[in-house]
């Protein structure tokens, strides 16, 4: 019970962080059809910006200013990069963001060096918030969940209750009509891209503290975010939310479980020895296989339900 509760809490908080990342990716994708390969790089930029700003002005102002700075970078990227490439089609856009991810990583290495930077939470967020039986639950994890939930509510309100949100929703499905009604669709695109990257930046401000802030943090989380987007269904925010929580929980639970096929065979009375074929596969424990599980889920999803959990598009 204790294990279950603490793993669940950790899984949900990690899942919410994944959602902060994948929501921006999904928004940008469903809006512009651009798969932003550099999305995790903006997450990394958020963490490094917040670290540098935090040295001067403290954590709390940086929590707001760093995502805005990342959003400005995103807007500039859209205006001067993506818009130029847009006329060559989606593959060129994808390649552009691929190159951009490469560039941002090198830029970060150039400015902040190769090693991890000591980016920490303010003292009020350190230490445990409460303990589940004997396992302490860190305050920062709770803060992370709070920020993610606030962000979720904010996105929902902006998209459904404001004028610009309605324009964005309309431009999703009928860009030509929206343009004909006198809205500046390229500017809406720029806004969405800036907004999406700012969300990634916010995730970075939080994630940089929760994990490590070093130049490899984009690569380590980048592909998981893509898995979330595909499993949830390309372009579906609700799907991304469910998939984030699912993958967050799968990874946290798997890390702590030491079961393997070997224990299953033993339970049903099969005798498996080191001479058995594929022994190295059977003896693999769940915790050892944890890094692969999201990708296995991705492959299974594509075989049995290609459009993802809540997706509507077949391709």
């Amino acid at each position: 019970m204790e294990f279950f509760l603490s793993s669940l809490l950790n899984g949900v908080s990690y899942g919410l962080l994944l959602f902060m990342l994948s929501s921006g990716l999904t928004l940008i994708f469903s809006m512009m059809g651009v798969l932003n390969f550099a999305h995790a790089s903006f997450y990394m930029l958020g963490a490094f910006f917040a670290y540098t700003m935090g040295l001067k002005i403290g954590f709390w102002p940086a929590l707001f200013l760093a995502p805005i700075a990342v959003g400005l970078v995103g807007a500039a990227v859209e205006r001067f990069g993506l818009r130029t490439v847009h006329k060559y089609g989606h593959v060129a856009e994808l390649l552009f963001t691929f190159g951009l991810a490469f560039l941002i990583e090198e830029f970060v290495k150039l400015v902040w060096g190769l090693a991890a930077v000591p980016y920490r939470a303010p003292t009020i967020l350190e230490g445990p918030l409460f303990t589940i039986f004997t396992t302490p639950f860190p305050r920062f994890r709770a803060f992370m969940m709070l920020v993610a939930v606030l962000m979720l509510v904010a996105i929902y309100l902006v998209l459904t209750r404001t004028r610009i949100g309605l324009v964005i929703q309309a431009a999703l499905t009928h860009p030509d009509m929206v343009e004909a009604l006198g809205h500046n669709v390229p500017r809406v695109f720029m806004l969405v891209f800036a907004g999406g990257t700012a969300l990634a930046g916010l995730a970075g401000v939080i994630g940089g503290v929760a994990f490590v802030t070093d130049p490899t943090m984009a690569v380590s989380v980048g592909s998981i975010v893509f898995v979330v987007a595909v499993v949830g269904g390309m372009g579906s925010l609700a799907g991304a939310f469910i998939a984030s929580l699912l993958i967050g929980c799968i990874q946290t639970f798997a890390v702590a479980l030491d079961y393997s096929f070997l224990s299953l065979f033993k339970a049903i009375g099969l005798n498996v020895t080191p001479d058995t074929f594929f022994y190295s596969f059977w003896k693999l424990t769940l915790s050892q296989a944890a890094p692969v599980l999201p990708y296995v889920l991705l492959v299974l999803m594509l075989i049995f339900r290609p459009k993802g959990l809540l997706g509507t598009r077949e391709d």
Partner: protein
Amino acid sequence: MPFAPTRSGDLLRFAPMNVGRWFIWGTTALVMLALPLVFRQGFALTLMSSMGTMIIFALSYNMLLGQSGMLSFGHAVYSGLGAYVAVHTLNLIGKGQIPLPVPLLPLVGGLAGAFFGVLFGYVTTKKSGTTFAMITLGIGEMVFASALMFPAFFGGEGGVSTNRVVPKPFLGITLGPSIQVYYLIALWCFLSMVLMYAWTATPLGRIANAVRDNPERVAFIGYDTQRVRYLTLILSAFFAGIAGALQCINFEIVTAENVSAARSGGPLIAAFVGGVGFFFGPIIGAVIFIFFVVALSDFTKAWQLYLGLFFVLMVMFAPGGIASLIALNLRVLEHGMLARLRWHYLWVLLAGAVTFAGFIAVVEMTYQLNDIAADGKGKVFGIAFDAQTFTPWLVAGTLLVAGGLALRSAWRGFRREWGEIEQTILDRGSA
């Protein structure tokens, strides 16, 4: 000329002896034969061997991206797993358990690559476009993560090492000296090039082009686009496996890095920079890429930044790659108007060089400042500087800004002139 033969008519003409084609392939073979006679140093041989494997790798990648419109982020899965199977086979040959001549090892790697192509391709080619790209990325990450889970096959952190010199050499070919390795790679490279070129003319190759251009219509006339993608991917994985096995012979070690995402990015960058629209594009790209990776990395720590910047600039301003730049200029030359561009070219190149020099100086000085081991002193273009003083920054900044402004105006002039020439050529064509 109302009855002039059309372009497509030219292509369909029956030509049992295509002199031009024999000439080009003959020259290629001769150049590959003669290169080691010109560049004799060990470093040059290693460089050329790497280029050979990269050419196969990039061309096999272009079967996907250029010929069939499939953007893959996980091509290293096939070359890497091919290399792993090859390295285990080579170790067994070394122990005398398999009677296979080592020069035929790339065939083993190729078959292994094709096997994994059959396996993974079934999942990946269900989709096309952006989703295909994401799935290949996922599969690539999956294989990379598995590499540390199965140390028996992947060799864990240290990888699997081998010795290409086996006790019983085939026909006296020991593969000990690197010149023999070069010729082995050159031979396989040439064979693969010919085969992959021949593939573009097969019915599968032609229909793959159609799937790239208009999948809906291909499906309409009765072809299964998924099957076309699947078959293409298997063939492409075969050639990637050959490249992997050659790499295994060349370096005598295979590590998990061989199946990593970074390795998958290599052929993508090479093929795109060279030009995916032309068969020979990736060959140019592979040579440039290896030059960046092997040669430039000796000079500067920031080589990846330059490579990334080069790639992004190509995506933005020359999405057809270097091959298309060559083709466009050849067309202008054909119409006798290249001379009109010479001053524009000179200005653009000059301004570009100044901007780039300023950029390089800024980057190198930043690296010197952040490097704990360095004291801020270094050299750019042989000029010593101290990054802790103000003057070098002023010089670099001036170069960057002035060069950038000059480049902008030169580029505008160039675009204008180029547009006029394009228009003239179009008018001539319709007249």
